[in-house]
């Protein structure tokens, strides 16, 4: 079911007419997306305003990351911090310019603020002072990223102001959502500074179009890897995607293959046709297994063993059997928990011996699991369970460099959400900060990012792909 308001919004005449008449119709901004494979310079010629609070520690990593990614930095920094831009500027022919040299009326594609040095209420004011005059200069589909520090030690004020950044980012995300813009907080724990670059790249790029209003924590927990590749990051990797026949699974299989992975596309025997068609189209392998079967995990590991190992497991297959608790039959509870949670646990366990070092486990959770929903007690339980599952799995596999994370999609335009009654569907779309539903490819992009070598700093976490939403399916 297409989004009428979004279609209307794409028509410039309709847009200006509605604006001129002052009609109370919310017009979501069409999001800028990136559809080709990962490029060496995803931020080519993007104008990025950069500031920092005193005591900032992440400016050097930031300078290197944005300049190598092709962006033009417009800095508002004291000389001691600005110096970090000199070498990358010279290397990539993109010397940083002063933010106040930006020509009148020029929009910025992103604003990044290093708040890692913020320790007290006074320091927090620097965040306000940086963004307040600049927020009006943000372009459509632009990005706001704040870099924070995980609080250490007993300093309660420092903990308070670092936590305050989270609320700030979530509110900014709501305010700039009408521009199709996103805001996120990247919290860098000590020792994880070198893992910031690839993450900043993703959050500043068009590939994070539907990721907004949330904190992302980087740690040095998973064993370090060499310099991550930005072009064809998944070359020579073998990936399994369950529930690959359509929707998010299909988009994910396509996106993984586009970065060079060999994708094993798994779905039910009943969806044999689309699954093998997909596998053929992306040069992958089709696998027919019903995740509801007791021996599903054994079948999968037997089928994958001849490939000699696996690098990426995407546990995507899932079902809904929505019923309010009083009406829910035990079979419904069992099948939802069986496929959405038990099968994930068993499949991952069965594949663990095949999982290579620096591998990736990505499990699909849901905003419903984080927020709860009427009629979804079983579904939400299974999806919230995923959050706990990846937390423990991440811890267990960290020493092998393997990360495990959950993705929580919000309202995504799929066959599943198209079946929701229109009133709820409309609410689902409009309540996100971006005022629209996401696309399966938005979730796929986030999965590819978490599967990439550059996401080594993120493990045991849940990344929402919800456009900054309250509810979802």
């Amino acid at each position, binding site marked *: 079911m297409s989004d009428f308001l979004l279609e209307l919004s794409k028509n410039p005449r309709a847009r200006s007419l509605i604006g001129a008449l002052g009609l109370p119709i919310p017009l979501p901004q069409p999001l800028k997306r990136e559809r080709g494979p990962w490029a060496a310079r995803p931020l080519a010629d993007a104008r990025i305003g950069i500031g920092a609070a005193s005591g900032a520690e992440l400016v050097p990593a930031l300078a290197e990351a944005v300049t190598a990614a092709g962006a033009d930095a417009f800095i508002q920094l004291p000389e001691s911090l600005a110096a970090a831009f*000199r070498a990358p500027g010279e*290397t990539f*022919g993109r010397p940083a310019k002063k933010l106040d040299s930006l020509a009148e009326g020029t929009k910025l594609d992103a604003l990044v603020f290093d708040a890692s040095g913020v320790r007290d209420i006074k320091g927090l004011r620097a965040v306000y002072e940086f963004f307040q005059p600049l927020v009006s200069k943000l372009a459509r589909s632009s990005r706001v990223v704040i870099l924070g520090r995980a609080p250490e030690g007993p300093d309660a004020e420092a903990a308070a102001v670092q936590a305050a950044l989270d609320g700030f980012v979530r509110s900014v995300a709501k305010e700039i959502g009408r521009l199709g813009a996103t805001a996120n907080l990247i919290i860098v724990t000590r020792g994880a500074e070198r893992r910031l670059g690839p993450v900043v790249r993703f959050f500043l790029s068009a590939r994070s179009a539907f990721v907004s209003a949330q904190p992302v924590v980087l740690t040095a927990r998973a064993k370090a890897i060499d310099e991550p590749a930005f072009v064809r990051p998944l070359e020579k990797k073998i990936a399994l995607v369950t529930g690959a026949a359509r929707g998010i699974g299909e988009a994910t299989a396509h996106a993984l293959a586009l970065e060079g992975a060999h994708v094993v596309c798994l779905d039910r025997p009943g969806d044999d046709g689309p699954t093998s068609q997909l596998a053929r189209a992306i040069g992958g392998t089709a696998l027919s297994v019903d995740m509801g079967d007791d021996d599903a995990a054994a079948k999968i590991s037997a089928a994958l063993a001849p490939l000699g190992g696996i690098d990426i497991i995407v546990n995507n297959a899932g079902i809904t059997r929505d019923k309010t608790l009083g009406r829910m039959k035990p079979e419904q509870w069992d099948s939802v928990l069986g496929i959405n949670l038990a099968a994930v646990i068993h499949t991952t366990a069965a594949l663990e011996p095949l999982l290579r070092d620096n591998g990736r486990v990505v499990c699909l959770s849901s905003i419903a699991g984080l927020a709860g929903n009427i009629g979804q007690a079983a579904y939400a339980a299974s999806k919230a369970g995923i959050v706990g599952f990846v937390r423990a799995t991440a811890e267990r596999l960290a020493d092998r460099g393997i990360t495990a994370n959950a993705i929580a999609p919000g309202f995504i335009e799929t066959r599943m959400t198209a079946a929701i009654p229109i009133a709820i569907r409309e609410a689902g779309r409009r309540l996100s900060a971006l005022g629209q539903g996401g696309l399966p490819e938005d979730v796929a992009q986030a999965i590819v990012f978490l599967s990439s070598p550059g996401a080594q700093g993120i493990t045991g976490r849940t990344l929402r792909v919800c456009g900054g939403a309250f509810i979802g399916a």
Partner: protein
Amino acid sequence: MATDKKNGRRAVVVSGVRTPFVKSFTDFTKLDTIALGVAAVTGLLKKSGLRHSDIEAMIWGGVILPTTSPNLAREIALDVRLDPSCEGYTVTRACASGLQAITNAVSAIERGDNDVIIAGGSDSTSNASITLPSKVVHAIAPLALGGKASAADYLGVLSQLMPISEILPRQPKIAERSTGEVMGESAERMAKRNEISRQAQDEFAVRSHHRAAAAIAAGRFDDEIVPVQTPSGKWVHADGLVRADTSVERLAKLRPVFAKDGTLTAGNSSALTDGAAAVLLMSEEKAKAMGLKPLATISAWSYVGVDPADQLLMGPALAIPKALDRAGLKLADVDFVDMHEAFAAQVLSVLKMMASAPFARARLGRDSAVGEVDPAKLNVHGGSLALGHPFGATGARMVTTMANELARTGKQSAVLGLCAAGGLGAAAVLEAIN
């Protein structure tokens, strides 16, 4: 690796010549790239005193190739009446085509394939063909090539040819296929990104003209240039683009051509040029046996590629250090640096990169900068800004001039650097024969 020395063979540059370089659509308009190549090769044979039958192979570089006869090397060899057994092939690597022809010849000689090769290049922008869009070609193909056509077929074709703007012949443009950007626009962006001022570009261009003019006045090119007679009977003896009387003040008056607020002008960009250059390469033994005194040897080279969407013309900044490494030389060791001047901004950007330590660390994986280029060693007789730039010929022109320079001065080495469309870069090291 640059050369295969396993069999002990070494290729040497024996001689080189070029036609005068003239602005396109002037004196050489009626001479196509093959005719210009013929003029250069004829001049080279005359100068070196070789018999036609001595030439075993021809390798030629060209950028704008005639569609019906793209193998320029063979056409030139036939037109010059070289022995029919002299085989030939044509290479195209944008503005590095001429150098590519020469390094191919060195490889072939050092491998033992041949002893005597003429390599060079030519281009005639004056004779670039104006092409019809594929849409037109595809639409009229059934009528033009398919035998009988009914009236309905003709009407069908007509209906496919709307709107008219899509079927008009296209003006040839030197635009990147991958980015659609005209080369001047790419160079304009490089000027901005590397902070190369208009003043610096104009000063560099003026220097190029003054050095070229001084070389011409001193007769330095007399041995290198062969006069060409045009079909109308006129003899052209000298380069047509060099301006001895230009000045920074004059160039400052020119308007930017690639961007409204830009810094690139007709004065600090190389002009569309017609011309050809040819180099005679031999195995060292053969040259000695024939009693010829070689000028120099080409000890190493390197070709690189960069993303055309980034800094299209930065290639030499990567290729030069690579070629120097292969030759076992440092930038400070070489006596001459000869850079193709596509645009003053491009040369100055590349020089800036070579002087940067952070650039060296990140892009070349080495601790220190490649080095500052001493202006006294750089383009001692001017470059493409003053002399012009017939795309395929420029590499062969540079090899000729530098080989002669080493022989004349008794200096030891020269490094050449060229940028080329597609994000390509090329470099070669010439060394004296002691």
